[in-house]
């Protein structure tokens, strides 16, 4: 496995470019060559979740044209990975040609931590990070992809890290894409509780594998004037 395609996702490209750099850095250190998928920008999840099927199909078509089958596609986001790996089959029910393509690449799509632990079979990536860290498991990562232990496996192996217990950690942070705008009041109530748990955990840094959660939690902490930082798992693993 010496070459992968890296699909950045729109949120990472636009708001968290450091995530892509970190993912590439970690992979390259493991002697994996990283080829960015530059011809696609968004997997279509936002449109899909909003019931805008036509728009989502157009984005799926674009994505499927931009990647090669038979070469792993690494995605630094649990929800985008589940979109590509799971929900494309629902989205493309009436598009047999695209559905076939989606099915062909399905086994090649991996969320970042999933790829490191299950495909490359690594735990220790040579990272050193001397901070108190709480890990927030993203919903789609856990419940759609079944990636429950991999991120913790990787984090536990980081030298100097102090892992903090996050109470009710499996509870959603309240992001939910457009939900966060349309039902902002409910989203904010969920975020409020998540932040309270984060604060009581004693963490200096919250780690997640999904830029949606990072945006929500980071935005909340920033508004609350909290000193706690948000980081993608890859950033911690890239630290030395």
């Amino acid at each position, binding site marked *: 496995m010496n070459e992968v395609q890296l699909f950045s996702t*729109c949120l990472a*490209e*636009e*708001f968290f*470019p*450091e995530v*892509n750099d970190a993912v590439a850095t970690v992979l390259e250190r493991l002697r994996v060559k990283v*080829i*960015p*998928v*530059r*011809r*696609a*920008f*968004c997997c*279509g999840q*936002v*449109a899909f*979740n*909003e*019931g*805008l*099927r036509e*728009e*989502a199909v*157009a*984005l799926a078509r*674009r994505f499927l044209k931009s990647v090669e089958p038979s070469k792993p596609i690494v995605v630094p986001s649990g929800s985008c990975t589940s979109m590509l790996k799971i*929900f494309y089959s*629902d989205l493309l029910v009436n598009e047999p040609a695209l559905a076939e393509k989606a099915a062909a690449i399905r086994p090649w799509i991996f969320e970042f931590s999933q790829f490191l632990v299950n495909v490359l079979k690594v735990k220790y990536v040579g990272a050193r990070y001397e901070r108190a860290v709480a890990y927030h498991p993203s*919903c*789609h990562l*856990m*419940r*759609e992809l079944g990636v429950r232990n991999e991120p913790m496996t990787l984090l536990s192996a980081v030298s100097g890290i102090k892992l903090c217990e996050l109470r009710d950690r*499996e*509870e*959603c942070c*309240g992001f*939910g*894409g*457009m*939900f*966060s*705008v*349309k*039902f*902002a*009041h*409910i*989203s*904010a*109530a969920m975020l409020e509780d998540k932040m309270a748990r984060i604060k009581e955990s004693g963490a200096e840094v919250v780690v997640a594998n999904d830029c949606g959660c990072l*945006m*929500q939690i*980071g*935005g*909340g902490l*920033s*508004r609350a004037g909290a000193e706690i930082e948000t980081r993608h798992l890859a950033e911690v693993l890239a630290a030395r």
Partner: protein
Amino acid sequence: MAASAKGDFFDSSRAAVQDHELQRKLESASTRHLDHFAIVKEEFPSYEDEKTAAHRIKTDAIAHLDELLIQLTDKLQDSGCKVFFAEDAAEARKYIVDLVKSKGAQHVVKGKSMTTEEIELNPALAAAGIDPVETDLGEYIVQLRGEGPSHIITPAIHLSKEDIGQLFTDKFGTEYTAEPEKLTAEARERLRAIFLAADFGITGVNFAIAETGTLVVVENEGNGRLSSSMPETFVAVMGIEKVIPRLEDLSHFLEILARTATGQKLTTYTSFITGPRREGELDGPAEMHVVILDNGRSAMLADPVLREALNCIRCGACLNVCPIYRRIGGHAYKSVYPGPIGSIVSPNLFGSAAGYLPFASTLCGACKDICPVKIDIPRILLHLRWKETEGEHPLKWPAALERARSGARRFAGIARHPRTARLLGKIAAQMLKPFAHNGYLRWMPPPFGNWTKYRNFPRPHPQKRRPAPAENQAP
């Protein structure tokens, strides 16, 4: 109490998220159930197998619903029941109200039944001059308060024992107490007198066994058993989806239902009702009717994705784990069926006024994880979102939210052209740069205004990536 005026859900949920007292009550009750559930699940290694069996049996039953209903009807009639198929709520209501009137019944008692809530039976009876009494303790309490249940299993979950103590003092003039035992005893005492006088009973049905014509009612207080056996006339009300093929199938459901619902191994009472009192028998009603309700269910059946929701055994677990239900409570949904499963069935049973509900979810999937019959709730919610968007009468959103939706649509349009999207991203980054503090913006224009009302927005800052071989491939 079907969802009425549009926009209701926004207002009611906005008020509910402010109600921290409500959240505390919901949190403590649902956490208690979930903690018990975790224990009983642990003690029962074949739980996952039972789930699989229950899922398989239900899916199969739903696929053969027409045959099973014919079989059930035959068996019910053989055992002396009168069977009425109600196409909608109005038909069901009318049948029951007419029956109560023709019997000249004065004292109607009810066991717990969400289906009778769905058809708004109580107001219809009241309009006919009959005041039915809810005999399930939780239902009794909410009825005293003049409200509907806020949870499909624990109707009074939004109330504390103090609230209930106060209610009893206000209604009965009894001395205030918040001790659950005393309150229960008080209610029991009052209900006993009501049961003795009752001449007409109504309950719901948990499972209807086609093979034997047996109705199974599962409960904890014995009130369902009394409601079905003491009065001279008894009506059971069930949705068409309650039928299962064989008696031997039942055990799988009983193994999971109480565990997921309340964390019990088994409910206290499981009644098997096969027809009215026979010659020589001492117990049971002289006359038994079964109202089998469609009310939008066959339309759900016709949709291959939605059909799965008919597997629901109304255990309520998805409500207990739902982070949204736990923040806003059942009443805010403005629908008889709240929570995740409610967001699926409500738009189908009550029409487009509940059409926002499928969107009011982060799709976190906690419901799907706990559902004992493995309903993929997020997937069905997504399906409903398309239906609402693509249907003949697309949902009307409040203006600001409509703008947010067209924002998403525009974004999707731009994202098809990665180079343009990246360029626009850079322009936005430049424009917003002066307003950012520590990487975040405190204010954003619509459609993100709702976002920055509650939290900061990350500053867009697409960097030029490190030179990479595929960089030049951008179209």
